């Protein structure tokens, strides 16, 4: 795949920023635990200038362009995966534009200024991977929905201005999403300390009789926006081909195909960083009177790492191409790519530590961070086991979930 001049310029500018601004601070920033709101907003503002972001002006060219999105996923993750997660998981902020008046009033100015942070709350403490039947319930009461339930592991939730919450809609018996904005309805969060992706916050949320206007139900937002003359692509920030997949493969599945392709490139970015470090080390470090690169067992490790990295990159690109084509195989390939690359990322970062020897284990070096960040990759956005179930269902049309 050849990048266009524009895509290359986008990547080069992003690389320059990451090298000059993020690389010098990342080790300490990540070690100190989750960024707070102000820190994240500072980076969001820098990234906006480079064409990465979730505000209405930036999103169409970022989320709306498969290649810009995947280039950014790889490049940012090369330097700091947590930063990518903080930015990417804020995309529900865009729906504020179509929410009920009280939410628009409170949040639109922030969104337009680029400082409306958001979160997507799907996972529940009880349900885990089984997200199709949420225990969180939205009950209709007059013109409002009253939401009760718990969500967990929600990225950005601790400091987010608004959260898009998956809940069982008691009025229709279907699953839907509801926008809760903190200006009108506060909710409690508790941060979770975790092994990797330490720079970004994940939290548990409790919704206790939280009332939102019916216009904050996602299906109403879509309906109202389309009745007001918007096209589907004015509402969702994704490319037209992905929006078409909304029809062909159901809206939530198409959204997941897009996000999982991003996750797949994220693993590629982490692997590339670990591989580059290992390659340098292999030519620098000498044992038994010669560089370790001249010991064949180390060569084999480099071979394995490079093979893992390149197969992962090709698979991720294939998933991106299918998304761009709006292919019916996009769901299969994005799950295959996310599952395969995240597992491979674990192996590659593990090998990189081995090539480094004891140095790889020191917390002052980056290798152990690569390894911890890689270890997280196989769990969010569907565990590897869930990706296998999706691929199996796509291949055979037989469900093996239960």
């Amino acid at each position, binding site marked *: 795949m050849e990048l266009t001049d524009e895509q290359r310029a986008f990547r080069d500018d992003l690389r320059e920023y990451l090298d000059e601004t993020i690389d010098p601070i990342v080790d300490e920033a990540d070690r100190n635990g989750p960024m707070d709101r102000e820190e994240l907003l500072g980076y969001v503002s820098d990234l906006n200038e480079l064409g990465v972001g979730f505000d209405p002006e930036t999103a169409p060219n970022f989320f709306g362009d498969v290649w810009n999105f995947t280039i950014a996923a790889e490049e940012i993750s090369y330097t700091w995966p947590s930063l990518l997660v903080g930015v990417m998981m804020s995309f529900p902020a865009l729906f504020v534009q179509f929410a009920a008046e009280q939410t628009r009033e409170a949040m639109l100015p922030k969104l337009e200024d680029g400082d409306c942070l958001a979160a997507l709350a799907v996972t529940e403490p009880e349900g885990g991977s089984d997200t199709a039947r949420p225990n969180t319930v939205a009950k209709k009461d007059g013109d409002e929905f009253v939401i009760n339930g718990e969500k967990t592991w929600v990225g950005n939730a601790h400091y987010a201005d608004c959260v898009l919450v998956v809940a069982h*809609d008691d009025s*229709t018996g*279907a*699953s*839907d999403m509801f926008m809760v904005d903190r200006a009108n309805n506060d909710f409690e969060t508790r941060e979770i300390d975790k092994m990797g992706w330490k720079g970004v916050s994940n939290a548990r949320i409790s919704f206790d009789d939280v009332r939102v206007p019916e216009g904050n139900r*996602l*299906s*109403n937002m*879509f*309906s109202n926006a*389309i*009745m007001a003359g918007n*096209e*589907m692509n004015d509402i969702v920030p994704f490319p*037209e081909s992905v*929006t*078409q997949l*909304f*029809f*062909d493969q*159901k*809206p939530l599945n198409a959204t997941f195909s897009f996000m999982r392709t991003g996750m797949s490139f994220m693993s590629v970015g982490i692997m590339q960083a670990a591989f580059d470090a290992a390659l340098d080390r292999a030519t620098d470090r000498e044992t038994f009177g010669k560089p370790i690169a001249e010991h064949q067992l180390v060569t084999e490790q480099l071979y394995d790492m490079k093979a893992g990295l390149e197969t992962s990159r090709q698979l991720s690109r294939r998933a991106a191409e299918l998304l761009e084509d709006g292919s019916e195989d996009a769901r299969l390939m994005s799950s295959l790519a996310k599952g395969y690359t995240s597992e491979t990322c674990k192996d590659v970062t593990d090998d990189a530590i081995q090539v480094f020897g004891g140095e790889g284990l020191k917390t002052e070096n980056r290798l152990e961070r690569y390894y911890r960040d890689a270890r997280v990759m196989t769990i969010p956005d569907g565990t590897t086991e869930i990706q296998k179930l999706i691929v199996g269902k796509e291949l055979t049309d037989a469900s093996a979930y239960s």
Partner: protein
Amino acid sequence: MTDDQLIQRIETALEAEQDQLEADLPAILADMEGQTDELVREHPAVMARILGRMEAMDIASFVSANPETADQFQELLWSGMRVMVERNPEVKEQINEDITTNFEADDCPMEGHLKVREEEELVTGGAGQLDDADITITGPADVLVGLITGNVDPIQGFMQQQYEMDGPVQKGTKLAPIMNSLSEQVPE
């Protein structure tokens, strides 16, 4: 049977409990066959009441038990739509593109279609399927009927995955406002 007698009979049936109505309906629908347009024009409120009562039924099991009613019921439904479009400029305003749609119930043998014609400012529909329709809508019979009568909002229902829609997204989003304005015309 004259129109008046038929209307009288329908009104009596509408007074009955749901079970009795379900037993009477196949014969009533059969008697209405071929004259639904006229009946809808002359007696819109009575026709709306039948549709309303039918919505409360389990349409899939009714149609499965009385397969011959699938087409008759649709004839009534679509006659209603045709007449409403003829009479209502609001609906005509929404028509700015040719769109053909097939409907297919996934829980009973019921198939229908809808044609939106820009030039004639017409919305027509009926039983059976069109060749090469732009859009295919598949779902439970009660959801499909709800889409036409306004009980199911087309976009909301789609987002909640109450039904599936195949075809170009751009045509689908154009169809939604037309269906919404149609269902707004159904008398309460």
